[in-house]
Every structure is written in C-alpha cells, then in structure tokens.
C-alpha cells in the first residue's frame, strides 16, 4: 500500500519511487542515512539500488523501529496512514493530524521546513517543531521519503514499513479504495446506538465483534455496514475502515502528540539528601569490598567446577561482610569487575585478591569508589539473575562465566538517563520502566534487568534515596558520548572507550591531588566521578570521643588511619554519619594480636581524643594487655626433662645439638623440634644416658625399637597382655600354606567341613581355652561339627560370603586367607566394610588401610578373636 499509487498526483520533478529517492540523494544525505542506520553499511552494499532494497528490507526496518521512540513511531504511523490520501502530505499535515499544531499554530504558518524550526528552538516551535524535526530525522534515516518537489514536500513511508509496523497503525482500520467509500457519510443522522458503536471503535482497536442475531445492536451494526461505515471482515467481526476512522477523529491520527518522554511522578528529594545517601552507600560499598578482600585473603573460596562462587562460600562471604546474600553477590561481582578479586588459575582454582586490591586499598574512599563505579559502568555482567535457575535447573552462581549480556551497558546508560531526566526525583521501578518503554516501545527491556541495575545503582551510591546523585551524574556524563544511536557492535566499543576516559581523567585528577577536574581530560570543567563523590562525602574527622562506658564515637567519616584503629581495637556498634564503637576485652585482644602494645594503643587513642583516654578504658586496655600472652602455646616434637637442672646445663647452647632445635622452657625442661627417638639417639651419642618415657611418665623399654608394624599390632592388642601370636604368614611357613591350600582344595573335592567348622574344630582342639568369638559362633551353629552334617565345600563363595556378611553385620574382625598377587596365600585380620558386586572392601586395622579384594580370591574366612 505504500508504493506510489498510479493515480497519485506527484509533481513531475519529484522522485517517483523509494529507490529513486535514495538514488537521487546527495552524498551528504546518503552519509546521513548510513549514520542513522549503520546496519545498512555492513556489509557494504554494491549499488545504491541494493542500498535502497536493504533499507526497505524487513530486517533493517525492524531494527530501525526497535530503536525508535514512541514519538517517532507516532509520526511514522501518522505518515503511513495519511500518505494513502490522494493529496501530497506535507509536514504541516502531519503536525495537524497529530494534534501537535494547536499549541504552536503561528509557527506552523511561517515555517514549513524542519530546519527552520530547529533553528527557532524548541520553545518557539512547540510540539509542531518537534514533529517536524522527527520528520526530518525519519527522512534522513530513509524511513520516509519525499515524493514532492523541493518547495512542496510530499511525504511517503518507506516500502515495507506498513508490514513492519503491523496491522491497524494508529489504531485505524484498513484503507479502502476511494470508489468503495461512501460519498458523503452523514454522521449526524445515524440510527440510535450507531454513534456509540462508532465511538467505541474510533480510537482503536478498530475491530468489533458482531452482536448476536436479532438483537437491537445487531440491526444497528448491519445498518452501519450497509451505509459503508463498517466493513464485515468475517461472520463475527466488523472493522471500522480507515477513512471513516479518520473522519470520526476529525482528521487526526492520534488523540494527542506524544512528543516528550513521560515524566513519571516520583518523590522529590533534596539534592543534599540524595548526595548524602549516595555517599553513605558508597562508603558502605567500599567497606564491603575491603572486608571482602580481607575475608578472601584469609580463606580464598574455591571456584566451582562450572565456574563461579558456591552457595556455601557466598553465605560465608555474606556473613563476613555482615550483609544479606544478594548484596554479597553484588559486591563480589563488583569487586571482580574491578579486578580486585580474580580466579587465581591454580589447580584447584580459587578466588583471591589481586595486586589491584593492594593499590586500591591505598587509595582514598572516593578513588576506591570510582574504580568500582567505573568498572560497573561498563560491565556486561548480569548479577541480578544470581540464584535463579538456568535451563538445566542449576542455580546460577555469582561470578559464573555465563552471567553476561552484551546489551547490559546500553540498558544501564538508558536507565541512568531516565533518572537523569528528572533530577532530585526518586523514580521507582515502574517509573523508570515507563520512560524506557517510551524510548523503545518495540523493544521493552526486561523488568528484572532494570530492577537489577537500579539495585546496583543504589548499592553503588550512583543513586541516593532513589534519585541520581551528583557522582552518578558524573559517571553518566562519561558514558554519554556513546549513548545516542548506539548499535550493538559500535555502541559497546564506544562505551568502553568512554570508560577508559573515566579512568584516565580520574587518574590524572587524583595524581594532581585535588581531584578537581581531570587535568589530562580534553573536556575540561567536567568533574570526574571520583571528584564528584569526593565532594559528596562528609568531611573526614580524625577525632574520636572516648567515654567512660567504654564507647567511642567518631562524629563523622573517620580518616583512614582512624578507621583502621577503631575497627581493630573496638567493635563497631552503629554506622552511618557517625560511627559508634565499643571497646571490649575481645576487641582490645584483637588489637594486641595485631602487634600493637597497650602503650601504643593508648597513645594512639589519646592522640585522637579531645578529652584523653577515660580511666575505665585505660584499665581495660592495661588489664587485657596484662593477661594477653600470659599463656603461651608452641609446637614441639619431643622434650627432655631431668630432675637436676645441672644435667641439662649447656644442652640448649651446644652447637653440636643445634639440629635438634632445643629450647629451654624451664631449668629442668627442654623442648626439641625432632621426634623423641631421634632426640634420644642424639643425647645418647653425646653421652647422656637418656631414657624414653611414655605419656604416663614411665620409662619405655626397648620395645620402641621393634619394627613399627609389630609395635602397632602389639599396641592394638594391648601392650601387657601377650596374646596368641598373630597369624601372619611368615616366609618360612609358605610351604605350610601351600600345603594348606592343597589340602583345602582336596577337601573341597570331597565335601569336607567349611571354614566355620574347621574353626570350631580348631578351637576345641587347642588346649587354650576357647575364646568368645568362636564359642559364640559355635553356639550359633551348634550342629556344625565335623562329620555330623554334610557341609558345603570350603572356600565355596556362598559360605565365604555368609561369614563375611555375618562379620559385616556385627562389625567384627575376620581372618581372611586370600590369594595374593603373586599367587601366595596371605592371611590377614580384616574388618569387612562392604560386600557387593563380587568385591569385599575391608579395613586392615593393623596397617590402617582399606583394601578391596575380589571374593574369588578369598580362599577362606573365619571370625577372628577379639
């Protein structure tokens, strides 16, 4: 419908088609087109014809419309609707149809050129001027074209625009050829109820449902259809045709021009309050990051295998920061964005503070904040989705590598601009969304993202009490050059460049010391974010009011040194414009642990206190210091003690014994760094007749020199009771073992007693009294005496398994004979832990090791004595 109709009365010297209009553009106009729609230039079109084709392609149009604001869309709709009319469409016609002319009728009469209005300025031109300017931009962008001659413009929409804008532009129904229209519709002599129906459809949507048959309304609707004022589209619907709609609207396409972004109602906040809130948020954030660095320095949290910070580590971090988990997640993200913490790349990897953190900690609050804020300004991270689940149902972790989106910086700029548009006003989420929706009605940003960005802005102090702060505005100023018409690719690059300038400008300013305007910045007189924040921060105080109830109050923002002092030596009770702290034994101990002495601490405090250190506090510090380090703890490998100090004289100083690391603890006690046996040998070799003693102070005999394995085995059975010799299979007995195996194999052939039976037999055969284990076992199987019951063959897996299962259930030791890797039989006392899949997992208490044995390698099992 947008193509030039054959009966149109285009002036002879105007272009006849869109393509022609593009082709006849001047070079400047073409450049303007490419500037307005950068996507047309990549890849470079080969001809102007193909440029025109691309400019009117659905993809490119959709893209252009996605960036269009509500005002532009309105103008486009208006042109689209009106261009169907037979007469040439002038800018004045559009202005009138939008209702934008009423406010500025006089300008309409004089200026019909958008450029004139532009020069005249917004105030003079009013809404009409705005509409004209939009028309000019749309012509530049090739979304409209001018079919008229120089003096008499005839605006036409770009082909394909109607499809791109969708059905019912401006809420108007379909256009119909002139011959189908009723010649002179008489709107005044309509049947009763007809006007109401038309009114309901006038401002769209133009489609109505046909009332049920034989109702009064149905008759009216039918009368309207007959009169040509409505069109039946199908059995159930009617539509108000465009010409009738326009007639009912009095030639207007829109009820009112939507020329300016909405200004949602918000609480108005005094700028001083905004900046104060912003500063306090900034200080909190800087403190959080400081705590984060300290916490992660102590215990670097591991990086999840899929990347990111684990739930438990996040919780621990939140605890260390003293904030909730979402805030902690944001803080972690900000610190990482600023490079203050990073994945250390070790195996296994963990997050640690970086060297940036070192430099950062040396800076003042404003600079520290600026680093975080500028990192945020360009960050593509989307921390607001932390805690939600992805498609696979996994919880998204902070710092996870996939938490970024390319559009985040652009949306952030737009959110900040929406706030900037209404200074000293606190906009809520809905307000901001309303503004954003006006700017791009066809590409509404996700609410969650906007909420997330607003939250981050609040956390950073870019906003204060919900309004953009001075520091936030300075941050935005550095982002701005890239904002208008930013495209996906170029936009981000430009933003990055802009932020680089934030850093550079600030750096220069800070180097100068006063931070007032970046010295190196080309754009002078625009204070960097750091300087803006510095101006908002309350003045530093270096004084603490110490009181008799062991509290201290810093009546303002503490200087860095003072902050360090009070954080270390006292517990903070309340933060805000002032900091109140309380000294306690624990807090003073903390300071002493950091190497401060009581004198230094008192001096430091007295120095900063107007009225000296109150006596109770002095007592507290001195009392704590007196008890501090009164009990000492150290590491020692062994000790030497003697009844007579002279015996030990000179030992600690003997250079030949230096390797022992002897330290005199008391005249009769020395501690050594080496194990007792080594110490003992060394002292013996020096000629001291030392003896080893046990924990009970009794002298140990030579038992200590036994082979370790034996010693432990003996230990497990108790040192004094000589038990039966553990049945290790010694080398000499291998022949016997072989023989036993042969015997067992034979027995198996014959169907002789099982391991259980043999055990019972052995127990009764022995002259030692039967031990509890076998007896109990024998009681459990009283019939199992040899010869009485035909038993399954020994070593039969079923039998083995049964004994093992018993042992497993009772948690008892069993003797297991198994075929070792070299085919020899080994006999070991094991404690079965698990039996399945043909494998036995068991604990060898003597070797303190777990082992897994295939059941088929087990030659025999019998319960072990306790």
């Amino acid at each position: 419908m947008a193509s030039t109709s054959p009966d149109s009365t285009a002036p002879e010297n105007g272009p006849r088609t869109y393509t022609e209009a593009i082709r006849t553009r001047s070079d400047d106009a073409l450049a303007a087109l490419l500037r307005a729609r950068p996507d047309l230039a990549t890849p470079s079109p080969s001809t102007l014809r193909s440029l025109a084709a691309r400019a009117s392609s659905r993809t490119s149009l959709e893209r252009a419309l996605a960036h269009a604001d509500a005002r532009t869309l309105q103008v486009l709709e208006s042109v689209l609707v009106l261009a169907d009319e037979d007469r040439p469409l002038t800018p004045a016609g559009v202005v009138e149809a939008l209702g934008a002319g009423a406010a500025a009728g006089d300008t309409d009469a004089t200026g019909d050129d958008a450029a004139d209005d532009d020069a005249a300025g917004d105030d003079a031109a009013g809404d009409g001027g705005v509409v004209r300017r939009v028309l000019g931009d749309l012509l530049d962008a090739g979304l409209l074209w001018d079919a008229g001659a120089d003096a008499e413009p005839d605006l036409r929409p770009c082909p394909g625009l109607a499809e791109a804008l969708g059905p019912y532009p401006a809420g108007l129904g379909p256009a119909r050829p002139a011959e189908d229209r009723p010649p002179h519709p008489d709107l005044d002599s309509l049947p009763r109820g007809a006007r109401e129906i038309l009114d309901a459809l006038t401002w769209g949507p133009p489609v109505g449902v046909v009332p049920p048959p034989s109702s009064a309304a149905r008759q009216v609707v039918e009368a309207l259809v007959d009169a040509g004022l409505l069109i039946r589209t199908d059995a159930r619907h009617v539509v108000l045709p465009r010409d009738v709609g326009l007639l009912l609207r009095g030639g207007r396409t829109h009820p009112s021009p939507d020329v300016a972004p909405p200004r949602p109602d918000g609480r108005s906040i005094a700028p001083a309050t905004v900046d104060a809130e912003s500063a306090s948020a900034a200080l909190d954030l800087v403190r959080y990051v400081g705590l984060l660095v300290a916490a992660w320095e102590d215990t670097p949290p591991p990086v999840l295998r899929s990347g990111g910070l684990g739930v438990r580590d996040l919780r621990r971090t939140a605890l260390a920061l003293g904030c909730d988990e979402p805030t902690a997640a944001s803080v972690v993200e900000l610190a990482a964005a600023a490079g203050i913490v990073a994945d250390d790349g070790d195996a296994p990897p963990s997050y640690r503070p970086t060297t940036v953190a070192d430099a950062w900690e040396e800076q003042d609050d404003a600079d520290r904040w600026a680093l975080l804020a500028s990192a945020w300004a360009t960050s593509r991270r989307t921390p607001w989705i932390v805690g939600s689940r992805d498609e696979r149902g996994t919880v998204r972790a902070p710092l996870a590598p996939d938490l970024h989106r390319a559009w985040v910086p652009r949306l952030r700029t737009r959110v900040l601009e929406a706030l900037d548009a209404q200074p000293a006003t606190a906009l809520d989420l809905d307000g901001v969304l309303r503004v954003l929706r006006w700017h791009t009605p066809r590409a509404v940003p996700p609410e969650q993202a906007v909420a997330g960005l607003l939250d981050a802005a609040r956390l950073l102090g870019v906003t204060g009490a919900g309004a953009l702060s001075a520091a936030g505005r300075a941050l935005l100023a550095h982002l701005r050059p890239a904002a208008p018409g930013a495209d996906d690719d170029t936009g981000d690059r430009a933003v990055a460049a802009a932020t680089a300038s934030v850093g550079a400008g600030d750096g220069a300013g800070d180097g100068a010391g006063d931070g007032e305007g970046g010295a190196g910045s080309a754009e002078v007189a625009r204070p960097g974010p750091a300087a803006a924040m510095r101006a908002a921060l309350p003045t530093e105080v270096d004084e603490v009011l110490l009181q008799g109830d062991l509290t201290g109050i810093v009546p303002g923002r503490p200087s860095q040194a003072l902050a360090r002092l009070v954080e270390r030596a006292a517990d903070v009770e309340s933060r805000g414009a002032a900091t109140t702290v309380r000294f306690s034994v624990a807090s003073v101990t903390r300071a002493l642990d950091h190497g401060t002495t009581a004198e230094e601490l008192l001096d430091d405090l007295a120095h900063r206190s107007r009225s000296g250190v109150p006596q109770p506090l002095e007592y507290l510090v001195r009392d704590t210091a007196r008890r501090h380090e009164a009990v000492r703890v150290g590491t020692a490998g062994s000790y030497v003690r003697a009844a007579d100090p002279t015996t030990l004289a000179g030992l600690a100083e003997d250079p030949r014994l230096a390797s022992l690391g002897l330290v005199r603890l008391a005249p009769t006690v020395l501690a050594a760094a080496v194990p007792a046996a080594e110490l003992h040998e060394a002292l013996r070799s020096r000629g001291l007749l030392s003896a080893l003693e046990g924990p009970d102070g009794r002298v140990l005999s030579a038992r200590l020199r036994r082979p370790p394995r034996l010693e432990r085995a003996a230990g497990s059975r108790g040192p004094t009771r000589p038990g039966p010799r553990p049945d290790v299979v010694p080398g000499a007995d291998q022949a016997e073992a072989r023989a036993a195996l042969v015997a067992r194999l034979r027995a198996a052939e014959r169907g002789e007693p099982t391991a259980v039976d043999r055990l019972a037999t052995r127990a009764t055969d022995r002259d030692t009294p039967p031990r509890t284990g076998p007896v109990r076992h024998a009681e459990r199987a009283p019939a199992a005496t040899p010869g009485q019951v035909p038993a399954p063959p020994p070593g039969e897996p079923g039998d083995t398994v049964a004994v093992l299962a018993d042992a497993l259930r009772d948690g008892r030791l069993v003797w297991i004979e198994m075929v070792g890797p070299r085919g020899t039989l080994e006999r070991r006392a094991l404690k079965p832990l698990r039996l399945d899949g043909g494998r036995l997992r068991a604990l060898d208490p003597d070797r303190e090791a777990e082992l897994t044995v295939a059941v088929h390698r087990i030659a025999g099992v019998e319960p072990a004595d306790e």
Partner: protein
Amino acid sequence: MPDGPIIVQSDKSVLLEVDHPRADEARRAIAPFAELERAPEHVHTYRLTSLGLWNARAAGHDAEQVVNTLIEFSRYPVPHALLIDVAETMGRYGRLTLATHPTHGLVLQATDKAVLAEVLKSKRTAGLVGDRIDDETVVVHRSERGHLKQVLVKLGWPAEDLAGYVDGEKHPIELASPTHPRTPTEQPKEWVMRPYQSQAVDGFWHGGSGVVVLPCGAGKTIVGAGAMAKSGTTTLILVTNTVSARQWRDELVRRTSLTEDEIGEYSGARKEIKPVTIATYQVLTTKRKGVYAHLELLDARDWGLVVYDEVHLLPAPIFRMTADLQARRRLGLTATLVREDGREDEVFSLIGPKRYDAPWKDIEAQGYIAPADCVEVRLTLPEHERMVYATAEPEDKYRLAACAPGKNRVVERIVAQHPDDQVLVIGQYLDQLEELSQHLDAPLITGATTVRERQRLFEAFRSGEISRLVVSKVANFSIDLPEASVAIQVSGSFGSRQEEAQRLGRVMRPKADGRTAHFYAVVTRDTVDQDFAAHRQRFLAEQGYAYRIVDAEDLDAVA
C-alpha cells in the same frame, strides 16, 4: 543545619553531642519522641522506637514535627529511609480509637477502613470484638478493652483510648503544707511540689492514664500524691513490698490531708480496705488453690485512680488484672521504662503511654538529686586465694570472688574514710554480711529481720542514731534511707541494670547539705566478679556518672 548537635544514624539511634552549644535545646526537642539509651560524658545516645514514637504521638506531637526536629538539629543529612519510617510509624497511632458510642457502648473506630479490616482479620482479635456496626466501627466487649489494646499494639496499630474513665467514688484529698510530722522529733516544714513534679502530674492528668518516668530520689511518691489530690477519689496504690507500703502511707499522711484512718494496708500481714488502700504486688499475685485469692480487692471499692509504683517491676499477673481495670485512671511511676523481660509494650498498652519523662542528669543539675561519685575498688586476691578460685567449680566461682575475705578490710578502710557520713553496706551473701556487720559493729538487716525491727533500724539510721548499716537484697527496693550518703556494694546478683538503678537510688536521695554522695563497689580483680562489675560500670557510665577505678592498695589516696 550543617553544624547541629545531633547525628541521626540509619539504625535509628540518635547521637547528641553534649558539649555542643545547642545541645540543651536539641535535648528538649528530641526528648518527647526519642528514648534516652545512655548518657555518658560526651555523647548521649537516644533511640527512636515504635513505642517512643507512639508515646510522642499520644502526647500530641505529629510526624512532621518529629521529622523537622531531626532535620533541624542534625549535623548531617538525615537518612531518608528513617524519615519515611518515622512518618509511617507515627501514622499508625490513632488510626484506631476506642470510644464510647451513645447506643453501642464501647466501640473501636477506624479512620481507615483497611486498617480495621486488617486488624479484624487477625486471629488475635477474635473474641475481643463483637458485631461490626459499619465499615469503620466495631463493638468491643467491655471486659476486653485492655486485651484488645494489648493485641493492637502487637499488631502494630496501637489504639488511642478515648473511651474515658469511670469517675470513681469521690474522696477529697488535698496536699498539705506544712507537713504533718510523723515522729515527735520531726518538725513540720513548708513545701511545694517541684516544678517537674507538677508538670508530671499535669501531663498525666491531661493524658488520662499513663506512666511518669522520674529517677530514683526525684520524689515519685509526691507525684502520686499530687495525682491523688487532682483526682479527689478513692485510690488503690500497688507497691512492691510491705516496707514500701508503709513508706507510702507515711509520706501520704505527712504531705496530704489524709489521716492514718483513711489509709489501709492490704498486705500479707493486714487486709484493710480504706478509701486509700495500699496493696503489695505479692498479695495480689498470691494464688490459693490455683486462683488469685485477693482479686476482690480490685472491685472492693469504686476506685477512681490506680497507682502502680515501680512499673518496671510489675509482675505478669498484675498485667492481666490491669487489663480488666481499663475503665479506671491508671498512673504508673518508674525510674525506667526499660524492663528486663522486654514487656515495655504491655506497659504501653495497659497502663498507658509515657506522660512525663525527665532526664536524670537534668534533675540532678537542678539540685534535687545528690551528685554521686562512683568508685570501683579493685582488690587483688592473694596467691593462695587465687589458686582456690582457679580450681573452683564454675558455679562456686562468683560466690568465692564476691566473698573474698580481703573485701572486709577494704570496706573497713572505706568506712574509716567517711567518719561523718551515713554509710550503707549492701551485699548478697548473708555470711559475708554477718561478718561485715561484726567487723564494722553495725546492725544487719536481712530478709529474716522483722518489719518492726527493720523500721526501727531505719528510723535510727535516719535520725543519725546509728551511722552504719549492713543490708542484704531486701534493701534494694523502695525503702527510704534519706541520709545515706555513702553506699558500699560488696556483692550483688549478677550485675542487673535494674538492681544498679536501685542501689544508686539509695544514695542519691537529696542530701540536706548538698554533699556529694559516694558509691563504692568492691570488686575482686581478674574474676567473674570483675566481669559483672563491667556491666555495672557500663550502666553507671551510661547514666552519666563519673566512674573511677581504684586499686585497693591505693585506696588511702582516695579522699
């Protein structure tokens, strides 16, 4: 105000810098709505609480006034969220009112339908209210007036009680000046109510019911008497114990037109019901076979006024009884609204909002309370006692530390330094007190001492006949020892704040000659005794008293 005297923190604490030129002005401005939390030497901490803001609202202050005050005196911009919260909290008071409807009787009215709907939806109000009259009014069962108020405070929508009070049985009471002497030796003297006392009476009377907060020694009894005179009706006075009851009686006879015959004592010992009846909490809370035996007292007469002494000690059963007394005027008297059981909201809903509060230090500055000098004497245990202490069972440690024998000598030395003062020695452990009593050759009052004997000794102490007195815990509550100018605490039960206020109250009664009162606490170094002393120290310092620590060895240096 870039250089104001207060700093408002976002955690709702308000810091007042005392040395600031506008500090006094600021203090007066914020006192109606902020609770003084602590008042050490340089910076006083106030706190904004819901109850405090509602108290202010009840006293006729509106949110705008509060917000403006904060902004006016604040040194830094006031946190925005806090101002919003203040306005929101204060807006909650008075949306609901209890009123008397000409036909339906007691009703709950709402200026906001939604609030009434929200409140009625709560399970807690079920059974307390009757039929809905319209969207904004609902009938309240007369007997549930108190319970409903309690519930509404808990729900965060405190109701303003405008339902009025029964007049009560008339009984003329006048304040009498000069005083009627109680003992032959006493001389009648001229007196008038101190300005803050009459302000307190007026504040209470205009508010209807409520609590008057005055420090110990500031003459709460006289405020009670003033209220009775204003009311001119039969009065029920609830006090903590018998001794306190007798003191109330003495004071009333001394300072009002009431005679002994008009005042009854309703205690464990006597059960008199007279136009003015003084009852102890204990007798009211006595249960016999599971029921309160003396509830009939509450209905025995048509009381026009009920006075609660030491509201912060009010036991829970009395709250329940008070819930049924809502139609009578109630006056609460206390030194502190802080209750260790955290039931401040019940005091608010059942007795009433705070009607008068004077900062302790202000009254002292006006010369009505003796300034006190607080000294903590630290005693180092000898080696062998330290060893005994170190190896003692945890539950015995406090007793061991508190009863260290060395304390006796310290007390003797302190007493020796105050030869001309009336000295009170306070302790918890009877063995220790008995020993001290022998050492000092001073009479001992314990729980076992008869009331008669107690009163005799107190009288002797008051008249200067004896100048040393050793008392156990019983002395902690509401006894009047006007001339005790030195108090020595040798042991105490676990450093309760309340106890501390009481003990300090003992010595802070106004002194005839304006001498400085002394408060000594003898503490064993490096033991739990010292840990408990830390609480005491904090409390006293928070109350703004100069607090010194002295080693027992250096004691002679202390004048």
